[in-house]
């Protein structure tokens, strides 16, 4: 007997029609794609990160394809929060899809500024703090690489808004669980795991980096195993904290990997570029998967991972 499947998902109090969102920086705010993708079928959109003032961004080339992935160095180009509120605000209000605004800044104060502004947009259902930004007050050290700085941002942002706030973390740290615990203690309502990995590629004919920004963010299926591991580690340590799993989700099976690892929802990044309907098709695929397994909601997958009892002694896992 086939179970009745419902994809509706509660993510830190945010109601989503499906557990498949579009990841920040890979779907705009939905405006550009609205003519082609029926946004009502998208689980949610996390907007491109917005900063207090306009950012011109990095010189080109801004992307390089790599094996099963890509590098990008956009440099957070965005028109600034004022222009965002003006241009994207009206769109978001009537978009018919839950919109989470990604905010970024170079100081705690800047995060606070943007949080206040975007909270006023009707239709915005949550804030994602993209703390993979350099902190100008600490020699450019990335917030997300320092539990204290990361917690500072989250405690401030959560005080500045009535909306649920997700902290987006990077895997480029020694201990992602430590950072996760710090931001959750600071008030984060949920976590987005993970941002791109810091990488670099070189044009061996030109003797130049393939990116204008020299280094950039690695995304796509290439990083999926790292992302699944991060979600698993964090959800084992913080089983009650809702997590958006991000990194190389390209189909329903890769999405289910994240749900089994402990995520409440997933966000699709790079796959939107080659498959603009990815969020829609993956949600459909998850529905079929659940039906085939006799399950009724994505929530049924959480915690269902069967792991062998781990040995008592620490073991080497690198090879």
């Amino acid at each position, binding site marked *: 007997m086939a179970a009745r499947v419902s994809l509706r998902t509660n993510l830190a109090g945010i109601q989503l029609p499906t557990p498949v969102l579009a990841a920040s920086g890979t779907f705009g705010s939905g405006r550009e794609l609205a003519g082609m993708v029926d946004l009502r079928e998208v689980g949610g959109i996390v907007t491109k990160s917005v900063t207090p003032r306009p950012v*011109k*961004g990095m010189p080109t080339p801004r*992307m390089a394809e790599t094996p099963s992935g890509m590098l990008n160095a956009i440099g957070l180009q965005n028109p600034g929060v004022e222009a965002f509120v003006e241009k994207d605000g009206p769109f978001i209000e009537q978009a018919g899809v839950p919109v989470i605004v990604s905010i970024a800044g170079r100081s705690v104060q800047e995060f606070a500024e943007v949080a206040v502004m975007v909270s006023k947009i009707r239709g915005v259902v949550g804030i994602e703090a993209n703390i993979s930004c350099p902190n100008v007050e600490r020699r450019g050290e990335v917030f997300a690489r320092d539990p204290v700085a990361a917690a500072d941002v989250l405690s401030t942002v959560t005080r500045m808004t009535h909306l649920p706030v997700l902290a987006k973390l990077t895997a480029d740290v020694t201990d992602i669980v430590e950072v996760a615990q710090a931001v959750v203690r600071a008030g984060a309502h949920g976590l987005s795991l993970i941002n791109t990995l810091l990488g670099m590629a070189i044009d061996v004919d030109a003797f130049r980096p393939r990116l204008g920004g020299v280094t950039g963010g690695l995304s796509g299926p290439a990083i999926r195993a790292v992302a699944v591991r991060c979600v698993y580690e964090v959800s084992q340590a913080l089983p009650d904290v809702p997590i958006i799993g991000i990194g190389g989700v390209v189909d329903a099976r890769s999405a289910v990997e994240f749900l089994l690892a402990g995520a409440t929802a997933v966000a699709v990044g790079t796959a939107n570029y*080659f498959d*603009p309907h990815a969020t829609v098709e993956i949600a459909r695929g998850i529905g079929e998967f659940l039906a085939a397994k006799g399950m009724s909601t994505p929530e049924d997958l959480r915690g269902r991972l069967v792991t062998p009892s781990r040995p008592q002694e620490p073991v080497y896992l690198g090879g």
Partner: protein
Amino acid sequence: MNRQKCEVLSAKRWGVYHSITLVAPEIAEEARPGQFVQVAMPPGRDFLLRRPFSIHQASRTGGWAGTLEIAFTAVGPGTEWLTTVEAHDSLDVVGPLGRPFPLPRAPTNCLLIGGGYGAAPLYFLGQDLRAKGSRVDMIVGAKTQERVFKPVEAKRLSVSVSTTTEDGSLGERGNVTDVLPGMMARCESKVVYACGPNGMLRAVAEYCSEQGIPSQVAVEELMACGMGVCWTCVVPVVHRDGRGWSYERSCYEGPVFSGARVWWEKWLGGRSTPVQTPPEGFRLEEMTAEGVGTWPPG
């Protein structure tokens, strides 16, 4: 912007060029010269992203109504794979994408300059220009004879054609810019349209700016999405008032830009001249008034 699974009607080859004609009624219906499509790659490969190709032809009426043609050379794994595509295969295509060439409000003398496969969209443009009563002249350049894109068709379309090759194997030896002043004078060109390597576009645009002639150039920058959402494909473009610049998306605000407004030094390097205000005689409003329809959408 549409996404269609398109049947391949035919796949042809001439010299170094391959062309694929697709059944793509929705895309063909909307397509304007200068726009492009994004073609999906097969699954299971170690490269993921779609590949962008200019629309070489889009037939909205007649026997070929609803078809679309792209032309390309094999330069890497994506285009290599495309050379193996055959009739009746199916391609996943998104398009039409980007800002097309703006057509002049009133008929005038238009010079079309194509380098390598960059000439591909100019035939589609030339037809539209002629249909609206403009005079079309062409310069078609390439490295070598076999890379000159459809020289015979260029002759059919234009009042006059000048061909250049770097090795002199066809037409004049040299670059399109070597013959540009002469052609522009002889044809009394009032507008220049160009597509080809970015370095060529820069040379054309800079000459046109000096001469006070408007140029519209279709640029190429690495694209991850082609749909305006990733901001990888940007080009530094000077604001209309000449007092600042932004990185604009070549897939959305472009690929066609006014040659006078692209900040070439910033983009392609080389001597760093100050940002130029648009030259006198720059008539953007006039240029964009017609033929662009609802572009940009929303």
